[in-house]
């Protein structure tokens, strides 16, 4: 599979994503957004960073770019798309996934390791994990608090579309373990279609064994 990692002005996790995917034996390449989606693309990563300087709202500008229209159309036809951090903000702003990621409860940029409980292991993004497994993954964001109307959150939960929730080291989903104040401790979900996933934590930063734990590999192996 050839995964296109889309680079916007201000992306800064694009090369990390390529390195992590390559380590897993997955063919990945950087694609500058103005060049359009290569025809051979079989998967897309929208990487983290600060596309367009977070003008207006994080992800708002990139979400209206032509390549994201293309990605949205291809996602409708089943293209696997993973939005990480700023990529998650972009995908939600583009309507590929419900809800919005907005200012952290702390009103601060937070760069730290958090624990996630894997909620649904029936998706390509999570089927390498055990149900209820606790993984450790870093976050690095100022606008990562997941907001959604209560009834739409209930729909997400009823449809088993929550992938990860912030939890403590023992897997307890508590307010104290809710890193950024997200509704329902939600850290990642699947979009309108299961081939689209968005998450604020960074699986690509916990994939290369040389730099520590590798809990994020399972997410990226969806592209294998």
């Amino acid at each position, binding site marked *: 599979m050839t995964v296109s990692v889309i680079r916007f002005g201000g992306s800064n996790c694009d090369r990390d994503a390529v390195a992590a995917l390559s380590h897993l034996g997955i063919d990945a390449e950087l694609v500058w957004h103005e060049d359009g989606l290569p025809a051979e693309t079989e998967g897309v990563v929208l990487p983290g960073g600060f596309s367009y300087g977070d003008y207006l709202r994080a992800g708002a500008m990139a979400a*209206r770019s032509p390549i994201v229209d293309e990605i949205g159309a291809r996602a409708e036809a089943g293209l696997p798309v993973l939005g990480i951090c700023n990529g998650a903000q972009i995908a939600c702003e583009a309507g590929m996934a419900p809800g919005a990621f*907005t200012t952290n409860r702390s009103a601060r940029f937070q760069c730290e390791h958090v624990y996630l409980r894997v909620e649904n292991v029936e998706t390509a993004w999570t089927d390498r994990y055990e149900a209820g497994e606790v993984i450790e993954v870093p976050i690095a964001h100022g606008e990562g608090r997941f*907001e959604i109307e209560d009834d739409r959150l209930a729909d997400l939960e009823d449809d088993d579309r929550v992938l990860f929730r912030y939890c403590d080291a023992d897997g307890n989903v508590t307010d104290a373990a809710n890193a950024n104040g997200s509704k329902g401790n939600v850290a990642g979900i699947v979009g309108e279609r299961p081939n689209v996933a968005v998450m604020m934590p960074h699986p690509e930063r916990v994939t290369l064994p040389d730099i520590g734990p590798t809990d994020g590999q399972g997410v990226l192996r969806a592209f294998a």
Partner: protein
Amino acid sequence: MGTYTATVTVRLKRGVLDPEAETTRKALERLGFSVDALRSADRFEIDLEADSADAAGEEAAEMAERLLANPTIHDYDVEVEER
């Protein structure tokens, strides 16, 4: 055609946490002000041409729907003035 200024005000829906506003409120309290609550909003002043004030308002509302506001977290209103 007339020339108008459409002012779009985008604010968080009631009930959506606004940590920046809360931080601002606390800073005002540190300065000695007594503040019960504080809400912040973004205001966009858009100069445009349209057939009528209503048409200018509709155009600005569509801008809000499609970009300036995020319907999950925001409400907005539009005011139009002749320029």
